[in-house]
């Protein structure tokens, strides 16, 4: 019995929930923190989720609420310092990694104590480029060139947000959707085909393309839900396998005349009709397209779905306690199928954003690694819609900045992966960061006090609804 009645510790970042005021950074005022609380509570809705699929945990565990955390929340509330330090730590570690591997730095390090500035310059240069490539390029010739980086960030973030929402939504219903990759491919496949093979009037065409992409993703996601609901097949296995199958299917189709350009044997589809493309938002010199607006709309939709609709209520109930959901008359099988279909549709939208917005054609690498990045994005966003949105922006910035960094300083873009993952790791584990910086005086009690702190945090954030 104790097993059932003892409240289980929350599996995720419960220790990252708001800390008592006294540990707050002096610079962050309480009012700011409260303001962000409010933002977050409208964002996260009534019930901040567990980022852990409960179904992959045990049925009927009495989970505590998750600390109401998304990235923003983390950054602006009591843990602002920790978040800041997390980023700092990741950047420093990334810097060290760049330093020890850069032959130029090796040269400057040789006379480090004679001219320490040289070494620092060599390490800071890539980061400067990163900012220049993702937010604002002060060296740009005109305003357009200066603002180009931020638009690029938004462009790159668009599919990440959409696919991230798909992963997050499934998470909330207790399903670990590793299959965004395959669902993006299907969305792109359907969308692109309708985009180049059908010729419809302006306006209608784009609409049909989006619809086709949503359907494509929904089919590929829905299959997972169907298999899970009908046969009990583990969704992790099925999604991994379906990713491969989707990829090979795409590669096959690109060798068929139906998908190849006229007179070409290269595995690239024709360009989509101009009527099938997302309109450019800021003119042709920017890549930013209306797909970004679709991503915002998708985020708002998912927020509404989860927090204001009966369907979302079912999803969340099934995710948090499938057994109680069943007892309350919720059709768990139907929920599973539906949530995977919607998750797939969201990933499919990411595919449409790729073919109809950014790339304008279909190729074998159309999904890049977006489907996998989306998992990290959703996890960093704590599976809340707006959390995922901002996490997607952050990753978009890193990706866009990474390109500029590589171009300017020849630093391999892989470093961005390292820094990104370190940030996620550190932000998820504030006590670790505090321990590294020696900020936690009661070291021995780290885990327990963290847990208790988050419990109070839970109640508090719950009370804010």
């Amino acid at each position, binding site marked *: 019995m104790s097993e059932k009645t003892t409240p289980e510790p929350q599996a995720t970042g419960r220790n990252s929930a708001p800390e008592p005021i006294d540990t707050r950074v002096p610079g962050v005022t309480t009012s700011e923190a409260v303001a962000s609380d409010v933002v977050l509570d409208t964002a996260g809705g009534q019930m901040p989720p567990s980022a852990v699929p409960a179904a992959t945990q045990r049925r009927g565990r009495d989970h505590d609420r998750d600390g109401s955390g998304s990235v923003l929340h983390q950054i602006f509330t009591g843990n602002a310092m920790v978040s800041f330090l997390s980023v700092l730590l990741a950047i420093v570690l990334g810097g060290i*990694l760049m330093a020890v591997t850069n032959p130029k730095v090796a040269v400057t390090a040789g006379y480090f104590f004679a001219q320490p500035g040289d070494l620092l310059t060599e390490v800071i240069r890539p980061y400067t480029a990163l900012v220049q490539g993702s937010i604002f390029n002060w060296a740009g010739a005109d305003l357009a060139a200066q603002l180009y980086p931020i638009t690029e960030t938004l462009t790159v973030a668009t599919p990440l947000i959409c696919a991230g929402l798909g992963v997050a939504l499934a998470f909330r219903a207790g399903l670990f959707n590793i299959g965004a990759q395959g669902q993006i491919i299907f969305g792109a496949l359907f969308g692109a085909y309708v985009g180049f093979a059908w010729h419809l009037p302006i306006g209608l065409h784009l609409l049909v393309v989006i619809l086709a992409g949503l359907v494509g993703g929904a089919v590929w996601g829905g299959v997972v839900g169907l298999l899970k609901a009908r046969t009990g097949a583990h969704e992790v296995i099925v999604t991994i396998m379906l990713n491969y199958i989707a990829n090979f299917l795409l590669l096959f189709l690109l060798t068929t005349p139906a998908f190849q350009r006229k007179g070409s044997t*290269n595995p690239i589809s024709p360009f989509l009709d101009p009527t099938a493309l997302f309109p450019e938002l800021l003119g042709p010199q920017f890549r930013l397209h209306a797909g970004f607006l679709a991503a915002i709309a998708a985020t708002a939709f998912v927020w509404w779905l989860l927090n204001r609709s009966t369907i979302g209520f079912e999803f969340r109930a099934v995710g948090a306690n499938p057994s109680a959901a069943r007892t309350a008359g919720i059709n768990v099988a139907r929920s599973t199928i539906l949530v995977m279909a919607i998750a797939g549709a969201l990933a499919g939208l990411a595919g449409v954003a790729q073919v109809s917005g950014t790339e304008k054609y279909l190729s074998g690498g159309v999904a890049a690694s977006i489907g996998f990045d989306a998992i990290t994005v959703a996890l960093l966003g704590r599976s809340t819609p707006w959390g995922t949105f901002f996490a997607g922006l952050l990753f978009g910035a890193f990706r866009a900045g990474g390109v500029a960094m*590589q171009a300017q300083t020849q630093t391999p873009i892989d470093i961005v992966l390292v820094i990104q993952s370190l940030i996620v790791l550190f932000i998820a584990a504030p006590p670790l960061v505090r321990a590294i910086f020696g900020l936690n005086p009661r070291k021995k009690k780290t885990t327990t006090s963290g847990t208790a702190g988050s419990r109070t945090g839970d109640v508090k954030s719950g009370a804010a609804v």
Partner: protein
Amino acid sequence: MAGVATLGASALLLTGCGAAPSASGPSGSATASDYTACMVSDSGGFDDKSFNQSGYEGLQSAVKDLGIKEKHVQSKADTDYDPNLRSMVQQGCKLTVTVGFLLGDATKSIATANPNSHFAIIDYNDPTFPKNVKPIVYDTAQAAFLAGYLAAGTSKTGKVATFGGINIPTVTIFMDGFADGVKHYNEKKGKSVQLIGWDKDKQDGTFVGDFKQVDKGKVLTQGFLDQGADVVLPVAGPVGGGAGSAILDAKSKGKDAKLIWVDSDGYLTAPDYKSVILSSVQKTMSTAVETVIKDDKDGKFDASPYIGTLANGGVALAPFHDLDSAVPADLKSDLDQLKKDIISGTVKVESKSSPTK
């Protein structure tokens, strides 16, 4: 991670006691130039032991020989091409070389938007390219044809094999040429050497599925050897190493098998396997890249496509090196004659994947 970091930091400290150099410019051997040539890889990256790497070597030798500046960026995914190209233009590149057909569309659109910059693209030609793009393409099938003939002529088991990374034209053009070479040998000599792993009519065969799983390339090659093949042509970038490894294993068990490398002369670029490398189907990309850069620097850029053939030395069959003795003299003379015939057009080499002229 922390361990690595501390280690690195302490290493820095330990070595950080030298004297600073006086403030002088970079000490290049050639005269420094403001001319910057750039390169963007496809998602394979510059260390793909294949065409990205060859192209990159061309850029490097241009830097060395011409004293120019260079910048290069690797694309991690297909979605990186456009931003990478843009940033190269922003970095003030006079000439940007892009590698692979996947960059075709991005190159075209960026080139159209930046008519004052020059571009060159390897392995792709599009008749609608603007006037500032120079396509560099190779009729690889010609050299692969020779390789097929060579393989058939040296095979003792009467079976030769090939496999690819993914079924795409830049890969299958090797396989097409190879298949025709084998066929030509059979017709000429009345033999029936069999090719496994590629069906030219159906344009399908054996593929690893990506360019990463080197160990799978090894198992595949073992499969070929089990089927009785004794000459293998892997067209799969780094995965070719797996084939080399399998053949080395077979050789250590007393089996006689040989490898034909692709893109570069494997005897030089993959020295681990030089004892089993019969020859290589070379695309002399580095030379082409260097030439294009030199021409552009000298103000002689032109957008007419460069098509590497046996005639202009753009593609070639590499020397036999250590396995020279394994190739009979009459086969060598046959190959020389065949090369002349291909150049003169008496022997036609056709592949669906051959570049459009």
